[in-house]
């Protein structure tokens, strides 16, 4: 009795765990903001099973360093630079969940779900990186212009209710575009004169001149306000605004930095020759050393001489990388950037940025796949249709042949599908079309364990054993066959996973999880069902098997 209860508890816990994994969760994705056309972070609730590109449509690109026009000294380093550059440009793709990853040390994989135009995607990826150093707005000219901008926005009918960041937009962080629009409609026109303006409510002065912090969830609002013509007109001459790459958290909120920088770079990546990260032995600081060309050194010496004690923003592809360092003294051909107590990893990353701007990595596309969204939809529909028909056939065979025991096996099969999907979600694997086939195939194989057990029980019954004994022996005798056959199949699938790529790996993973789930359901869960059944009917003479 106690045994049954503990088995039921374990089964219940497994069901809970699988259901828990499948509960729609908040996932952060980048989406295009309707009002500004720019990318922002957004959260959506959805079942956490990732669909492969073959199911949702999109572009898959594999890139390698192009050595056809001359050897590249360090291809692995070149691919790391390329990855950094592609990551900086990730918003330009305009897709919700881009994947950028290095595989095998020398290949860059870029996956763009939902993107349709391969030429455009390739253009963005293969464009040469542009690095520049610019002095930040040391005289706070942008800051001085903010009140005028607020006034202009007020004139245009844009306002933010309440002081500071709007309460509405804080409550509905992910939905600020709409909230601001609503605020625009409802707020009365005359009462807002004494309140801070729409723009100044969003920008907080940062630690250095020309640095402003914007709450992460309000970045799209700030972007759309700054893009308005009445604001653009008021941005002081010679000043440009650039967003930072990093999101900084202060307490519970996270902020993105916006920098007002001079519109002319003091030097560009063309003049940069080397950049390396190291840890300074004396001060224990992380440091990036860089070397400029001779010509660049002369220009840099003159410019830095004029800008001692100013801050210098390092901008790659229009994005400010890290916090701008201060210029301590005139710098010639060799300089160093001190990162204070930042980690060596940060320093390495900055050095990579500098090198990416200096030595563009010529990328060749070695593999390209574009799946139209309609094809992906058709694949899902066809896959589900085949799955439903296959499962119905399997259920019919089992119930007709094994009667009540077959019903138990089919019930366990339901749990099996739940466990497999839960496992896929829990480990964060991607479901592909071959994976869908693997799932369906493992439904057929999953029942093998039950078939083995039931046949064994029938044999034992035929040998004149009592129902209870026959069930026990059926389970124990079938076990060695079940284990050996499943383990060897799982080993083959595992090798498929190790050696295969993309879709084949997806298939192998689904098969492995399916095998594990089928062992658990066929052996453990069905056994529990039998125990309950036998307990309810202790005097049972014939078994419906």
């Amino acid at each position, binding site marked *: 009795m106690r*045994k049954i209860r503990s088995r039921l508890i374990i089964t219940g816990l497994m069901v809970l765990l699988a259901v828990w994994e499948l509960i729609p969760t908040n996932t952060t994705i980048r989406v295009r903001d309707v009002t500004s056309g720019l990318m922002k972070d957004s959260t959506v609730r959805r079942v956490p099973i990732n669909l492969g590109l073959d199911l949702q449509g999109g572009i898959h690109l594999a890139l*390698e360093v192009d050595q*056809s026009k001359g050897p590249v000294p360090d291809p692995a380093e070149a691919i790391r630079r390329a990855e950094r550059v592609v990551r900086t440009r990730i918003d330009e793709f305009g897709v919700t969940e881009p994947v950028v990853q290095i595989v095998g040390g020398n290949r860059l994989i870029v996956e763009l779900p939902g993107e349709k135009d*391969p*030429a455009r995607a390739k253009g963005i990826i293969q464009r040469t990186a542009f690095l520049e150093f610019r002095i930040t707005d040391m005289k706070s000219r942008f800051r001085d212009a903010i009140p005028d901008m607020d006034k202009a926005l007020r004139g245009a009918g844009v306002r933010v209710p309440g002081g500071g960041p709007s309460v509405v937009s804080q409550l509905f962080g992910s939905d600020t575009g709409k909230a601001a629009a609503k605020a625009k409609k409802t707020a009365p026109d005359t009462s807002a004169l004494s309140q801070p303006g729409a723009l100044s409510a969003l920008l907080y002065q940062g630690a250095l001149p020309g640095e402003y912090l914007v709450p992460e969830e309000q970045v799209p609002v700030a972007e759309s306000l700054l893009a308005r013509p009445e604001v653009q007109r008021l941005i002081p001459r010679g000043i440009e605004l650039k967003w930072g790459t990093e999101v900084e958290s202060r307490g519970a909120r996270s902020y993105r930095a916006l920098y007002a920088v001079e519109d002319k770079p003091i030097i560009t990546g063309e003049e940069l020759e080397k950049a390396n990260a190291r840890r300074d032995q004396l001060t224990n600081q992380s440091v990036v050393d860089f070397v400029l060309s001779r010509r660049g050194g002369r220009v840099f010496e003159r410019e830095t001489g004029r800008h001692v004690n100013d801050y210098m923003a390092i901008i790659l592809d229009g994005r400010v990388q890290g916090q701008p360092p201060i210029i301590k003294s005139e710098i010639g051909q060799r300089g160093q950037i001190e990162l204070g107590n930042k980690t060596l990893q940060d320093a390495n990353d900055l050095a990579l940025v500098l090198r990416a701007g200096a030595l563009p990595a010529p990328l060749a*596309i*070695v*593999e*390209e*796949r*574009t*799946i*139209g969204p*309609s*094809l992906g939809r058709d*694949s899902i529909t066809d*896959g589900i*249709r*085949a799955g439903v*028909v*296959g499962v119905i*056939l399997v259920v019919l*065979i089992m119930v*007709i*042949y094994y009667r009540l025991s077959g019903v138990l096996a089919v019930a366990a099969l339901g749990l099996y599908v739940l466990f497999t999907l839960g496992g896929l979600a829990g480990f964060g694997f991607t479901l592909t*079309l*071959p994976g869908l*086939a*693997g799932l*369906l*195939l493992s439904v*057929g*194989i999953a*029942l*093998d364990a039950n078939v*083995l057990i039931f046949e064994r029980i029938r044999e034992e019954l035929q040998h004149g054993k009592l129902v209870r*004994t026959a069930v026990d*022996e059926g*389970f*124990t*005798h079938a*076990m*060695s*066959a079940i284990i*050996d056959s499943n383990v*060897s*199949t799982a*080993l*083959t*699938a595992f*090798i*498929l996973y190790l050696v*295969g*790529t993309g879709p084949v790996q997806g298939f192998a993973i689904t*098969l492995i999880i399916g095998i594990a789930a089928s062992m658990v359901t066929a*052996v*453990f869960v069905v*056994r529990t069902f039998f125990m309950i059944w036998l*307990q309810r009917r202790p005097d049972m003479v014939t078994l419906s*098997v």
Partner: protein
Amino acid sequence: MLRLFANAAYDFIKWRRWAYGLTAAIIVPGFALFFVHGLNYSIEFTGGTLIQVATRQPLATSTIRSTLDAAGIHDAEIQTFGADTVFVIRARLGASSPSLEGGGTQQTAQAVAQALDAGLGAGRYEIVRTEAVGPKVGRELQGKAFLAIFFSFIVTLLYLAIRFEWRFGLAAVLATFHDICTTIAFIRYLNLEVSLVVVGAVLTMVGYSLNDTIIIFDRVRENLRKFRRQNLYEILNLSINETLPRSVLTHGTTMATTLALVLLAGEVLRPFALVMTFAIFTGTFSSIYIAAPVLMYIEKRWPGEDARGARAFRAATSVPPGPATPPGADAGVRPKAVV
């Protein structure tokens, strides 16, 4: 109670020479074709460009061909894909067309799109899928596929040597090797395109066929312990017959799912599903007619060293009699521990 093949007592092994003949009749012509024509590798393996086009109206393949010819693209292969509104246009690398050399796969895709625009009119067709694979990636994949099959053999051999005995392992691996040969012949007969997914199907077939062999061998292992007077020939026949109902049922349920995939899951998965359906036949066949006779042959050649007689293998006798439940397999349930 519905029972199929219960208490069957067919003399399966007696027909083994006929079975060898049958399997040779499948493999030999298949391999002859294979050596003459090779396999129809997908561009994933050869490198090249694939463009899948869906047109508004049904078209003949020749219309597309003449359209491409008019634009100067001559070497492309054109096939319908499931329906006569869906076409797959392939241009493999290494074909004689000079425009395809030097990794110009993307240019090929653009050239085809331009040709279709000119010939069919823009908007009257839609490009639903394009793939372009460089030659290097293709070569890598070929190597990986062979590696995968090789490693799966080694691992299986090791696992079976540990769990059973090396004679069983060798017999099972030879049966699996036979299955790979018949499957290659099958792929060659139907001229299926060998894509990565089909290689995946072949490896799954390996797992499935092995699974089937192991179920029978498990019974052989048990019967060798139980009936010490009978010879291996009888034991093998007995074990195959005893597991026959299971074979019929399991193959039935698996076949139901693979046939559903063949008929309903669409063109992309069809080669995969066909290979898997064939796998059920060849896997069952080889478990009975390759694995079992090979085991007999190995046993005759290298008899087990057990003193009681040639048929009792060392591994089988070293396992203590009684239910062979591996520890921890069925959590907490000891035999006879009835609740």
